[in-house]
Structures are given as structure tokens and as C-alpha cells.
């Protein structure tokens, strides 16, 4: 469920998206991963996808950034909101997750990674502007995805979207997403949805980066801006 809050007045005119990280509290001049991010589990793994635009106001600081950060061998996290905040978060979680792996003598699980991320987001909610999606594969649950929006709630989901561009594709993902999809279908769906969001959201654009995680390993790809499934 997504509960629409009242339109928050953006302090920089950057984005009018409901309740998105950019429309709350970014400091003047701070880099925003404007963003569309998405992660979908399928039988046997998880597909993560993101756009690549990083902006400060109307200036695009980086048009080919990598918003899919690696937390452990088979666990990744899509970042949206303040670039600085999400980079710091992923660094912390990577650190604590590695310590957990050493103490437990077993590979990290997505549930633990998501819980660590959520804990930091919640405890520092007053000072952070970050919405992340943690997704990966572990041998306890298989592929799983946790959405951790602003404020630090943690929701396990079958299809998670986030970032300012996500508001334009809620309908599309609802229509396209079905349970039981395989790797290929899920990857196609993710690419299509992100293209649609990039076409409408000013803060999303560039290339589409995808990451497919299964028990056999990790495959990272990107689609150049002139080869998007949909778009001007």
C-alpha cells in the first residue's frame, strides 16, 4: 500500500513528487539522486534496476552514476534521496554486515542487511533524507526485496519501487507485475517501468542500470540512453 501524504512544498522547486526524499529537507546545493529505483524478486533471484541521473537543482552533476550499491556478495541496495546520506548508509551497512558474516560464519542474509539499514535510517530519521531498496539472494529465503522509505519503515515486497520517478509508474508496475515470473520477464519488466519513469520525471534519466542476482552469481548490465525500451 502507498498512502499519499499531502503535497509537501518543495524548498527548491526541484520536484513536486509526493513525499519523495527530494521534496523534504535537502540542503541548498546538496546532490540529490533524483531517481527511479526498482527491485523485484523472482523465483531463483532478484532483479534490481535504477536510472543514473544525479542532480543539484537543474544541473545534472553526473548522468551515468551507479545507484545500485553492493552490500555483500549477493546483496545490493538501490539508493534514492541525498547522495551523501545514502553513500554513508551503504558504507555503514556494508561494514556491519561483514562483521555479522564473520561472527556467524555464514553468508549474509537479505533480512539482516535490510534490518541493519532500517535501524540506522530510523534512529537518524531527523537527519537523513534517504529511501533505499535492499534486494538480494541468500540460501535461506532465496530472492527477497525490502523497501525502506523515508522515516525507516521496512516492508518486504514482491515488487518495490522508489525515488521521485516511481510515482509515475505505480499504475504501470501494478499492471505489469505478476507472481511467478521468470528471470527474463522480470528483467524486461524492470527495464520498461524505469524507462517510463525516466520519460516523465525530470530528476530521472541517463541510462538504465540493472543487476540480476541468483545463486549462480551476479550479472550487471546497462542500457544506453538512446536504446531505452520507451521514451522520447
Amino acid at each position, binding site marked *: 500500500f502507498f498512502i499519499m501524504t499531502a503535497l509537501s512544498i518543495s524548498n527548491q522547486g526541484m520536484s513536486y513528487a509526493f513525499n519523495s526524499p527530494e521534496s523534504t529537507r535537502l540542503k541548498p546545493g546538496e546532490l540529490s539522486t533524483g531517481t527511479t529505483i526498482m527491485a523485484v524478486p523472482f523465483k531463483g533471484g532478484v532483479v534490481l534496476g535504477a536510472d543514473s541521473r544525479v542532480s543539484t537543482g537543474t544541473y545534472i552533476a553526473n548522468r551515468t552514476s551507479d545507484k545500485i550499491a553492493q552490500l555483500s556478495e549477493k546483496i545490493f541496495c538501490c539508493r534514492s534521496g541525498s547522495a551523501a546520506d545514502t553513500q554513508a548508509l551503504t558504507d555503514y551497512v556494508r561494514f556491519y554486515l561483514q562483521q555479522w558474516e564473520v*561472527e556467524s560464519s555464514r553468508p549474509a542474509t537479505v533480512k*539482516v542487511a535490510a*534490518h541493519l539499514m532500517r535501524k540506522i535510517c530510523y534512529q537518524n530519521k531527523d537527519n537523513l533524507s534517504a529511501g533505499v531498496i535492499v534486494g538480494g539472494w541468500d540460501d535461506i529465503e532465496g530472492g527477497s526485496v525490502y523497501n525502506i522509505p523515508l522515516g525507516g519503515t521496512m516492508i518486504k515486497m514482491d515488487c518495490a519501487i522508489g525515488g521521485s520517478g516511481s510515482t509515475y509508474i505505480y499504475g504501470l508496475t501494478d499492471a505489469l507485475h505478476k507472481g511467478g515470473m521468470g528471470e527474463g520477464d522480470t528483467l524486461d519488466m524492470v527495464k520498461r517501468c524505469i524507462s517510463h519513469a525516466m520519460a516523465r520525471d525530470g530528476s530521472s534519466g541517463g541510462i538504465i542500470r540493472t543487476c540480476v542476482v541468483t545463486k549462480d552469481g551476479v550479472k550487471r548490465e546497462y542500457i544506453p540512453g538512446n536504446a531505452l525500451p520507451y521514451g522520447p
Partner: protein
Amino acid sequence: MASSGSGYDLSPTTFSPDGRIFQVEYASKAVSSSGTSVGIKCADGVVMVTEKLLGNKMLVGGSGRRVHGVDRHMGCCVTGLLSDGRQLVSRSRSESSNYEETYGIKGPPGVICERIAGFAHYFTMHGALRPFGATVMVAGFDEDTKEYSLHMIEPSGVSYRYYGCSAGKGRQGAKTELEKLDLETITCEEGLKQAVKIICQMRDEGKDKPMEIEAGWVRDGKWERVKDGKVSEIEKICKEELEEEEEDMEEDE
């Protein structure tokens, strides 16, 4: 063990010339003069049973517990000095709840035991402290791997994982009896009975004071104390069986 420390046994911060820390060994002696405890890892769970020697007739049965719950999926059994054991139990409870608060999952018993062992060990190498005079057996369930496990933490701070373990007065005899059991297939119900039987066997009726048996187990992923009524029923059955076996043996002779 009748060696005299002769000056090297005053503090846990002193090694003896042959490489022993006497204070830690003395702590283990405190454990071995306590009532016997037996732990068995069964096919479908873990059982722990302990014998509580009752000081006098005025004691209300069921008080002075030796078997404690640590978390929903883990419990422990103290042998040795009860109050020392209580500290260890309290520490395991906070370790377990802190673990869950930080990582969002129930702490795997092995990991929690290593933390308790580290805590116990701390007390074996500081001048102002003494080692715990208690051994703690821990029974637990790992929610991720779905495995049951039995661990034992000794005063020295070592912690091992066991198929079957024993502590206290009758531990040597109990160990021999445990080795006779088929631990691959034994169920918790059967394991409980066997453990109670072993404890009854190790007692010397003439010499030993009146006692009460306490038990707890982890089954179906949950820790539970075995109800006192059920334990005393089993104790009665075991005593009868043991008497019959004795009679049979006498007849054979």
C-alpha cells in the same frame, strides 16, 4: 585432583610453572561438587535435565531454579554455584535480546554461546575478579538453518557443541551411559526419560540428600520448561525400572 597450588593459586592472573591456572581449575571443582546435569541433543530437539539437591525439608519445591529460559528459542541449565550461574543466565538474556534488536533475527545459539563464553573468560584473566563457579548448558534452535544444538560453557570460558554432555557430581558415569544411547534417532520424549534415568542411576540413595529433578527442552523451535508434575512422574517410572533391573541382575548372579 589433590595437587597443592603452593602459591600459584592465589589469583587467576598467575600461571603455575606447569602452565595451569589453578583458580580456573578450582572453579571447575566447585561445579563438580554440585548435582548432576545431563543434556542430550535428540533427533527432534534438545533436552536438559538437572538434579537439585534440597538443603532441608523446609524448602518449597520448585524454588531455586537451575533451568532457565533465555529467549523464545533458547534455554539453559546451570550446574555449580547457583548465584554465579544466575549472572551468566542474565548475561545470555541480554546478549540474545540485543542481538535480535540489532540484526532483526533470533541469535543462533552457537553465536550467543560464544559471546557468553567470552564473557565467562573475561573473569579468568583479571586480578580483581574470580572465575564463575558454574557451568551452563545451552539448548537452542537456529531459525535460519532449522537445526537444534546443545552447547556447554565451562568456568574457563570454553564452549563446545555436544551431542550429549554432563556436568556435576556424576558426570563421568553419566557420560558413559550417554554413549550407550542412539543419539541419531532418539526423540525428545525418550531422551527426557533416559536423562532422568541416568540421573537417578548416578545417585547414591544412602548418602545423598533428598533431591528434586528439573528439566527443560527445545522442541518445535521453542524453548519450554518441562512441567514439574511430568518430571516427577517420569522420575517415579525410572526408579521402578532401575529397581527391576537391579533385581534382575541379582537373580542372574
